[in-house]
């Protein structure tokens, strides 16, 4: 039953998902080409100087891409459910609601994580070709909150869609924007000012905890609490 539920989700999102994969790949390839060109047109030590001493973040274009990916997948996956009240049918399947809701959510989260992992791996491999491993780990530390922002946005899009009462929808949207905004705290104006290297574990745990709230929204939806 869970397998067919996942297959149903895949049928729903597949074209959009392929589109999102392409979007991510275009941005990542663009980052790779820019770095390749930097090394082609400047001396290697000039590029190193920029990256090590002057805060030249060559992968900055990636910043909002995971966020956009998370929002779009959330919209594609959950809006049709609500518009045609299809979720009602899902919740009446002979599986526990917890299981079906969490399956749908984690299916989407896994799809996102596959894209994000691909982004991170491609950029890391390319960075490692040009720079020592310290620069790779700093890329991972810097971009991790951006990826978490994508997951958080997805979680809250799902919540806002499923929640039946408008007042609570607005509240969830505000809280969601709040959480996502926190994850971009490392960007102040142009440069990278602060880093998550001491606190990223907390943010991973917070994101995991947030995935549970869908149970409450699902409960409200089923009971029709408005």
């Amino acid at each position, binding site marked *: 039953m869970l397998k067919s539920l996942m297959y149903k989700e895949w049928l729903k999102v597949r074209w959009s998902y392929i589109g999102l994969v392409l979007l991510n790949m275009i941005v990542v390839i663009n980052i790779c080409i820019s770095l390749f060109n930097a090394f082609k047109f400047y001396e290697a*030590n000039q590029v*190193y100087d920029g990256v*090590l001493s002057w805060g030249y973040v060559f992968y900055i274009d990636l910043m909002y891409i995971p966020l956009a990916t998370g929002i779009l997948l959330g919209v594609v996956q959950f809006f049709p459910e609500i518009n045609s009240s299809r979720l009602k049918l899902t919740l009446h399947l002979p599986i526990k609601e917890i299981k079906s809701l969490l399956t749908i959510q984690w299916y989407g989260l896994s799809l996102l994580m596959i894209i994000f992992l691909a982004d991170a791996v491609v950029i890391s491999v390319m960075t490692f070709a040009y720079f020592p491993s310290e620069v790779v780990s700093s890329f991972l530390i810097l971009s991790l*909150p951006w990826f978490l922002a994508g997951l958080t946005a997805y979680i809250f899009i799902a919540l806002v869609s499923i929640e039946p009462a408008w007042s609570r929808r607005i509240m969830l949207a505000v809280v969601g924007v*709040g959480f996502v905004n926190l994850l971009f705290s490392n960007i102040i104006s142009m440069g990278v*000012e602060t880093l*998550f290297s001491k606190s990223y574990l907390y943010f991973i745990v917070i994101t995991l905890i947030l995935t549970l709230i869908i*149970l409450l929204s699902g409960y409200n939806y089923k009971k029709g609490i408005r």
Partner: protein
Amino acid sequence: MMNIKSVKIILTASIIFILSIYLPDIFWSTFRFRVERPMVSYSPVINDFLFQYSGKSNAGIKDRKGKTYTREEYEAVMPQFNFAQLMFAGKMPDSVNGIAVDVPLMKKNLFQSRFEPSTIDGFNYMMYPLIESQSGRVNLEYPNEFFIIKDKMEIIDSRTNKVNRDMTEAFTNVLKQHGFVFPAKKTFGNPTTRKAFDEGYFVIDNNDQFFHIKRVKGKPYCKKIDLPAGVNVVHFNVHEIVLKEFYGIFVAENNGLYLLTYDDYKVIKLAIEEYDYRTSSIRILGDLFNRTVSINNENKYSVFVLDREYKLKDMYKGQVLGKEESAQGKISAYLFPFSLSIVSSKSMFVNFFLKVLDLRFLIVNMILLSGLIVFFFIRKIPLDKNIFPLLLVCITGIYGLISVLVIRDFNSSNNFKLGK
């Protein structure tokens, strides 16, 4: 069904978490408060402090007794900074208090050094260009080699992204001979060629020993610096300036401020007080006559004037209206039981900075609590079945009230969920 109550608690906690970050933030950006701290400088002409206020209401320059100075008067008694303007206006003195002066001399002796908590609790790659300090060229040249001190002093060629084995071995061996314990904890230096000359880097090793490392004609130079007992370097500002009086200035774990003299590596302690490297910011201004150290704390500031022999000459301690004593600060102390922030001006790292001032917030919490009780009475919601929201408002005040009101999930007497 998984315990829906516990999910509700998670949601409530998330709302309170978000509110305690953003509500104080919105409050402080609406009712902005700036600490009006004067800039204090010491005049070698009148041997006294002058205070420059930049606030909108009381802008102006005053001395200790309150006498005001015009800009021209100020410049005339501060020739050590304003020599260019004095020269331009034809008012440059030949001597100050019997010491003959000219512009190049004053320029050579002028320097500034700053320590901020956020740069001390900051991040760097620990990877720096290994600049050649005696290339035989008039200008410094940017090298192709970069180093990082891990289990050895690894030198990487940026052209190939490969380790330069010969140089790595040479530098690592010299460091080992001097008793360096790998890896390095912190590295300080100016990774640029836009400086008068190169003195390489100052490195704290894993045993808190302090080393001077540079590249001289392609060969390693290493010197272990003898620090006084109990002095552990926290942050070092390297100054490669033509004055060549010292390598730089450092802050130590014991909140002392020290100078490391040029060539003979002597450590001079500066007589300062009221400094905590985790919270205070410090500015050292050096000129031909004095060294002026200004230390800024939350609601006070102090200025110490040292002569060229680093003897304390004069000092001034002042108070300013701090953020917490301001009207806004008092209101926020009543309004917000606590405030959470994930960024801080004292650190370059994202973390959770929780701030609880005192218990003044309990007054507002009680008012909010009675408001909620009245609300319950009007809506005929039984109090005894809704202890949790009441308790929440009692402790978390405004945050709890907002979360209770937006979730709106109260138990009524006939166990029927009340909606809108």
